[in-house]
């Protein structure tokens, strides 16, 4: 490259010359490319990722609300089942007590009947024994 142009007198880089215009054109070209072809796709990627984050965040919050609803429903159902079980238990206890009371009453009645029968038997036997003694004495 250097061979194509004539080397002119050496001038310190302190002196402004036509390099200024070459550099303006060169940097303007770089800037133009970056402005047109690099920054817009990066902006687009940033926007797309932000949208994905927003969507995921709203989906997560919707999922979380749904999970809360399901949890509340499950808790309500569990409370209902517990209440029902408590009521059923109470009912079974009451019925069992009634049955037991009935059985006890029945047993008491049967005992009293049997006692009465035993007593009447004893009395009859005592009557028979008295009559036998009377016959023997005669």
């Amino acid at each position, binding site marked *: 490259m250097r061979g194509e142009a004539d080397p*002119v007198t050496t*001038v310190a*880089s*302190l002196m402004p010359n036509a390099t200024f215009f070459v550099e303006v054109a060169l940097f303007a070209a770089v800037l133009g490319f*970056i402005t047109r072809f690099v920054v817009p796709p990066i902006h687009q990627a940033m926007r797309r990722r932000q949208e994905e984050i927003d969507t995921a965040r709203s989906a997560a919050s919707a999922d979380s609300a749904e999970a809360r609803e399901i949890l509340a429903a499950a808790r309500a159902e569990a409370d209902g089942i517990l209440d029902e079980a408590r009521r059923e238990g109470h009912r079974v206890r009451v019925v069992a007590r009634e049955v037991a009371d009935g059985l006890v009453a029945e047993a008491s009645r049967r005992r009293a009947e049997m006692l009465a029968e035993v007593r009447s038997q004893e009395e009859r036997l005592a009557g028979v024994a008295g009559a036998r003694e009377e016959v023997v004495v005669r």
Partner: protein
Amino acid sequence: VELSEIGAGPQWGIGGLVVNAATVQASVVAGAVVLGCGVWARRQARRGSPGGMLLAWEAAISAVESRLGSGVGTAGRRAVPLAISLFGFILVANWAHLIPGWPLPAPTADLNLALALAAIVVGSVQLTAVRSRGWRGYLAHYARPYWWLAPLNLLEELARPLSLALRLFGTMFAGGLMILLIGELLPAYLSPLPHALWSTFEIAAGAMQALIFALLTVLYHEAALAPPTTQPAIAIDNERRS
């Protein structure tokens, strides 16, 4: 070392115009690196798989946009690629010559490149100010807060590109000069350590200069986007912060 040799290099004569060959060659390399990084990030963005390069670009874009605030969507749109391109370009230009065996000098040590970059920045700032406020508002801001301060405001606008360019050029030129002096003035057995130390400092200085140039670009655009009433205060504040 003769004083006239400092910063001298091969030149091209094109139609009677003189162009510093090494500066242009090194600038082409720096521009190619920036374009390469841009193409790499673009490919990652299109593929939808975010890699390190894409994330670096996204971080840079977000940083500039958050600095520019609400104005970024309209008139300040151009400041984003400009600041990022400037940062990458100046960083590569400042660092490339530190690679051992690299044949080209730092192009930022040439006043022509520094002035060219500053001219582009100031052109963009003026364009942004006109778009943001309209011609009437743009011209009126020179007469704020008092009409007789117009010459000073105009001077400030002219001082911006000069200060931008001379800051970068001065730092990088002085860095090159130091390396030259270390090599020339010290005996060969003594020069490696100071050379290594100075090169390390040059790495930090090169990054700092790239950052300052890009940051000032963003701040100038931010001031150009601000409402006219608060513009002088913001401009002063920005100058202080920088």
